[in-house]
């Protein structure tokens, strides 16, 4: 398998902000991600997870090098679709339906029926059928997040960057969407970078799990070899959970 | 419009607002220019009339060549001639009576005014009204600029409003406002300060027509037609006052009777009167940078008068 994402010597500091003692949020950050990997990132609040994702997506200037499929990419592009942490990432001037269809149109899908079919399919996946004609401000927090997930998935990008996408969801919806992502990851040619605070979620989803320290360093980089599907009763789940839990406690 | 497009030549005229421009209304309504030109040459001319609120804009229009003929106060016209806008006076249009009205009893004479710090409203600083005031002051033995610091520039109707509502002490104005204010003498306790009519009457050139040098030189036929048309219009006002009043009253928002009264109070004539003298006075008192050497600096050869 070839490397789909390669980060070398990434350094990121916000202007006008001394940040940590060393003056930057991320420093000499390195990461090689292979195709169809499902990378989960854990780490304490404020450690730089979102910052990392934003650098990969091309929203922030940085030092160092980020290559996507062996090409240096500094600008945002449709090969890496981001689901933001913020609730207000949908275009408020478009209905749910149009929010999903607009990027698809830009991608070249013009057929109205096909668009509607895709919309229906992905709204079904995120358990939101019937909300097509609503505007974002008429949705609850979790519903907005799910529409954003549907919008990203429908685009079928090479890399999906997700920033705590399930944080606002109840356990059941969360389980259903986890299963959905696993399915996509298994059947489609798609690489995931997935930020979560939920250790269980990271173990269930990730083919690889990174834990960042409070100072933005990679503290654990673990290849998850537990047999799928993984549940808390899977052999080895307990140890793995403890590994990450303890590392976070430190 | 179709006929207009097919016209052989065209001319742009610009003028301002008020009774003093009555002959233009006659010429416009009776199409005197078009007729005169066609009679003389057998060709047609398209005439465009533009009403501007400042002589300065007319000057710019002529200087840039988009206007060929303008009508304005004799003051700006003299300034234009001397600052090289490229025109000269080609005829006189009208003269109007001016007067200085006051609503303060203690201001009986110019002297009272000079010794007070009451304000005088007139249409613009450096305007012909300002110059008239300067002349009157000099005539009465004061410095021509003695009242300069007391001036308030505003349009005639605003000045009248200010005077009648007691907000300004004096108003120097012309036809028809001066007549309206005189009518109100009793009711509003206004009175006239003497001294203006000594130096300025309706016989003095007040509004003159100017014509670009290009038109004068390059199209003598049109130039002739213009002169003739306006002379006719002026003659019409003088000879058929009632009919003329009926035509122009609508534009001035009066009844035909009032209009006739106003028209008769003015002097409509083609001969200029006192232009050179005025220019000399202006040059002597800083209203003008360079003095004209002779009347020929200000007017074309055909113009009669001084």
């Amino acid at each position, binding site marked *: 398998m070839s490397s789909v994402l390669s980060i070398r010597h990434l350094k990121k500091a916000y202007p006008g902000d001394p940040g940590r003692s060393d003056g930057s949020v991320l420093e000499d950050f390195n990461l090689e991600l292979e195709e169809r990997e499902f990378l989960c990132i854990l780490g304490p609040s404020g450690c730089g997870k979102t910052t990392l994702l934003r650098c990969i*997506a091309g*929203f922030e200037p940085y030092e160092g090098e980020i290559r996507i499929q062996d090409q240096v990419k500094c*600008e*945002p*592009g*449709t090969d890496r*679709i*981001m689901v*933001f942490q*913020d609730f*207000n*990432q949908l*275009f*408020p*001037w478009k209905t749910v339906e149009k929010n999903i269809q*607009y*990027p698809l149109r*830009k*991608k070249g899908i013009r057929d109205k029926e096909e668009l509607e079919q895709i919309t229906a399919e992905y709204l079904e996946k995120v358990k939101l059928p019937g909300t097509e004609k609503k*505007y*974002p*401000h*008429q949705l609850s927090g979790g519903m907005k997040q799910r529409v954003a997930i549907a919008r990203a998935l429908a*685009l079928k990008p090479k890399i999906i960057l997700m920033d705590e996408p399930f944080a606002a969801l109840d356990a059941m919806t969360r389980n259903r969407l986890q299963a959905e992502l696993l399915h996509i990851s298994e059947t489609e040619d798609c690489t995931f970078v997935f930020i979560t605070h939920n250790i269980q979620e990271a173990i269930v989803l990730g083919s690889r799990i990174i834990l960042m320290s409070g100072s933005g360093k990679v503290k654990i980089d673990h290849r998850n070899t537990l047999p799928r599907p993984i549940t808390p009763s899977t052999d080895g789940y307990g140890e793995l959970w403890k590994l990450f839990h303890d590392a976070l406690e430190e | 419009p179709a006929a207009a497009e097919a016209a052989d030549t065209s001319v*742009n005229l*610009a003028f301002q*607002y*008020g009774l003093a421009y009555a002959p233009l209304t006659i010429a*416009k309504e009776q199409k005197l220019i078009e007729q005169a030109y066609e009679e003389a040459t057998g060709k047609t001319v398209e005439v*465009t*009339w*533009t*009403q*501007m*609120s*400042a002589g300065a*804009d007319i000057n*710019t*229009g002529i200087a*840039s060549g*988009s*206007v060929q003929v303008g009508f304005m106060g004799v003051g700006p016209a003299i300034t234009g001639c001397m600052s090289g806008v490229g025109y000269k006076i080609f005829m006189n249009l009208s003269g109007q009576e001016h007067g200085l009205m006051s609503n303060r009893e203690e201001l009986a004479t110019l002297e009272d005014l000079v010794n007070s710090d009451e304000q005088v409203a007139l249409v613009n600083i450096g305007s012909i009204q300002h110059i008239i005031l300067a002349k009157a002051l000099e005539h009465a033995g004061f410095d021509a600029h003695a009242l300069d610091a007391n001036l308030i520039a505003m*349009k*005639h*109707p605003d000045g*009248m*409003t200010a005077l*009648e*509502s*007691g907000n300004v002490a004096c108003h120097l104005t012309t036809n028809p*406002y001066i007549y*309206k204010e005189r009518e*109100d003498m009793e*009711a*509003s306790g206004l009175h006239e300060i003497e001294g203006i009519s000594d130096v300025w009457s309706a016989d003095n050139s007040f509004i003159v027509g100017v014509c670009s040098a290009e038109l004068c030189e390059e199209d003598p036929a049109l130039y002739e037609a213009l002169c003739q048309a306006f002379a006719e219009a002026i003659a019409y006002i003088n000879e058929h006052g009632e009919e003329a009043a009926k035509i122009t009253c*609508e*534009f*001035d*928002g*009066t009844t035909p009777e009032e209009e006739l009264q106003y028209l008769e109070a003015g002097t409509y004539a083609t001969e200029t009167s006192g232009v050179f003298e005025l220019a000399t006075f202006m040059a002597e008192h800083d209203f003008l940078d360079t003095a004209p050497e002779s009347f020929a600096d200000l007017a074309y050869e055909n113009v009669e008068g001084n």
Partner: protein
Amino acid sequence: MKKEKLQSCFVQLVFVAAVASVWEATARAHIFGARSELIFPTLEAIGSAFVKNFASGYAGVSFWIYILNSMKLLLLGLVLGIAGAVLFSGLSVASRVFYYIYNLVVSVFDLIPGVALLPVIIILFGIRPSVIVFLVVHAVIWPMSRNILDGFAAIPRIYVEAGKNIGLNQLELLTGVYIPAATSYLVSGLKVSWARAWRGLISAEMIFGIASCPGIGLYINQMRTNMKNAEMYATLIVIVLIGVLVQYGILEPIETHTVKKWGMTK
């Protein structure tokens, strides 16, 4: 929504009635000297001048013609001004260099009174109705541009990022993100511009009236020159009526169907 609308209409009507009464009382008190009536006409006088305006026009030309001429120039100037503002502000989004220049241009030209530009305009355009159009454009384009530029700068970053993320190019970003996201600024700018255009038109026509294409500004100027204050106020009422009609009939519905529907404003 419906109820609020009614309530607002009611309050506004009561207010207008109150203002009218005060005006009428002042007018009837004759407190402004002998010509009080002339300077401060009663509502009756204004009303009959209003009727007369429409019934008989002025100088043999129907009042409708004045309105029509003005509206033609006004709309042309407004459309050109708004289109120009959108176009140039859009280019400013695409190019930083253009932004620096345009920002300066807006700051400078917004300061220059129309009359002062007149010589240049006359030189370039001659004496034509287009001069008035130009003055209207001059009145509209700079404040509108200011609103759009500032609106574009203030839109939440996340929308622009989401737009770039789905691969929008500069033009698509402009039409697909910047313009809808800044709609409340745009609508505000439209309201200001609409008023600017009216005022610009009246002043333009007052300094520059073309007898072959007489407009409302020329009309007002004539009325002022002739000391017909009742007619002048009646004409102002027409201007205000048209202006308010557009505001409540066109601009507010635009607001209701965009930013209000989208939950972006109250």
